[in-house]
């Protein structure tokens, strides 16, 4: 058992990666996640590991490509505009089947947007990021403790599937402080016979590559990748059901910081005799379809997706619910954080003017 320490989210990200045996961190300064780089800059050289501030987000993700291709655990971290820039590199990493962890501490957009918390990267990160047919597991913690645990899991998942894995938090999670415990755990770091880390007597050279000039070969590669994504969909689904044991008037769908706000609304509403539940996706990809299978019969007025965006996850909720129950949306954007009472007003509006 480790002891509990009070840590800022962004620093806890760095510490979690170090404990997961991350040997190389390549970053670029961008608010609101710059403290990740600062933490790694301080800690990594002291334990003979690599911290490097890249010249750009593009270079940082390609440094990850290089390091990951030699078989070492590595990570990069950024925020929304930087994640857009990394898209090319992430596609290459997925195509070449390299494991790595990418952190996205989301800020408002589009464009330069703002530096305040947001969840408006949902579409770009859950639909793969970058070109081509691929998917990337995306985990969305709602507390710093969960963020730390998910980052350590992310390294294992990345190695298991040889795929990039993202942990996405809104700017709030990066900036706030909470007590956190770094649990002792066994590293599931496999032997990597595919790594291009020098022949050292090996008969055949290893090649890290995503180019397949023959259409037949590329299709076979895609079929192979799709098998992996199917396995990920079966094995990596994570979610929390909160207050959904009995029938509900309405069920929230929310992740990260907004899920915490929804929990406050649930307790206010209970005092008024209104029974609200929460589906909290932890894996945004794969999207937790079964959470809806388990709750759809229990909700009278359907689902309300609450997001710090103009309505992104709600598309996945609608795709899963398939019109069997109403799906409503409430969101704030631009770095505005939904107020509990505003969410509650939306609930009452949906329920038909309950006063």
């Amino acid at each position, binding site marked *: 058992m480790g002891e509990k320490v009070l840590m800022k989210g962004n620093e806890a990200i760095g510490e979690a990666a170090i404990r997961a045996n991350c*040997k190389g961190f390549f970053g670029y300064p961008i608010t609101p996640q710059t403290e990740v780089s600062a933490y790694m800059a301080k800690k990594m050289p002291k334990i003979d590991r690599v911290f490097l501030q890249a010249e750009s987000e593009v270079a940082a993700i390609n440094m990850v*490509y*290089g390091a990951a291709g030699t078989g070492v655990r590595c990570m990069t971290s950024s925020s929304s505009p930087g994640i857009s820039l990394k898209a090319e590199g992430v596609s290459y990493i997925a195509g070449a089947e390299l494991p790595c962890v990418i952190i996205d501490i989301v800020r408002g957009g589009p464009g330069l947007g703002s530096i305040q918390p947001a969840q408006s990267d949902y579409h770009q990160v859950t639909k793969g990021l970058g070109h081509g047919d691929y998917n990337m597991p995306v985990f969305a913690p709602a507390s710093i403790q969960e963020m730390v645990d998910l980052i350590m899991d992310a390294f294992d998942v990345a190695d298991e599937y040889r795929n990039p894995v993202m942990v996405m938090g809104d700017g709030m999670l990066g900036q706030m402080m909470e007590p956190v415990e770094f649990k002792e755990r066994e590293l599931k770091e496999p032997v990597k016979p595919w790594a291009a*880390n*020098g022949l050292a*007597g090996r008969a055949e050279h290893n*090649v890290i*590559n995503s*180019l397949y000039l023959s259409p037949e070969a590329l299709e076979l590669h895609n079929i192979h990748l799709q098998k992996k994504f199917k396995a990920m969909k079966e094995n990596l689904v994570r979610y929390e059901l909160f207050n959904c044991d009995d029938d509900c008037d309405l069920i929230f769908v929310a992740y990260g910081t907004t899920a915490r706000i929804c929990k406050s609304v649930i307790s206010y509403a209970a005092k008024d005799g209104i029974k609200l539940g929460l589906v909290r996706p932890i894996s945004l990809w794969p999207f937790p379809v079964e959470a809806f299978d388990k709750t759809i019969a229990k909700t009278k007025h359907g689902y309300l997706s609450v997001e710090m965006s103009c309505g992104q996850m709600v598309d996945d909720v609608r795709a899963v619910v398939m019109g069997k129950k109403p799906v409503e949306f409430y969101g704030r954007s631009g770095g505005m954080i939904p107020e509990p009472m505003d969410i509650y007003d939306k609930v009452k509006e949906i329920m038909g003017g309950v006063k």
Partner: protein
Amino acid sequence: MAVVFDRPKALLDVSTHYCPGCTHGIIHRLVAEVIDELGIIDKTIGVAPVGCSVLAYNYFACDMFEAAHGRAPACATGIKRTNPDKVVFTYQGDGDLASIGTAEIVHAANRGENITTIFVNNCIYGMTGGQMAPTTLIGQVTETSPYGRDAKSTGYPIRIAEMLSTLEGATYIARVSVDTVPNVMKAKQAIKKAFQIQLEGKGFALVEVLSICPTNWGLSPLEAMDWLRANMIPYYSLGVKKDKTEEVK
């Protein structure tokens, strides 16, 4: 019978996709001979670019990466930083290094990354069928400069070796040509030195190799060699542009 000429061990026994007369074959061979002579094949990791030499990973026998367009120096940085005991080289063309990858090469050089870059300059985008490159000479006709490159609208051919020589972090920068046997020998010496500098932990080394593209220049290989001598060498002067290992002596 005594074997007097053989394939270097660092090159695989495969046919290449290069056009007849292309000098990539010579340059591949020089790099491979250097790897053999230094006895480093077991610890060498190469990074291929996007461009004509994209398939170099199929030709070099050491472990290889294929990087995104222009990103080979960043990829090599990630490899070398986490594997400092390995020998890491990038092999890049002029579209890859001097256009889309300028940020990566400048900063790798400026950080003094302990890697070796072989930069093949043939004044044109070859793989995509002969478009204007940043290195295309003034007046040179390409698919995207059909009336000849005009400095007014497209600027000037970029001298990478000279530009990188201004950076404190760069240790060794040379420009060579493979148009004649003596120049091929000099090119090999420069490439060997660029690898030795890395082995000694002395930092960033780049060898710019002037190369021909008979196919996209629309010339025979012999005419292309003449064109290189008549047009490229006067603008892209040969020689060592920077050598910190000599300065300290």
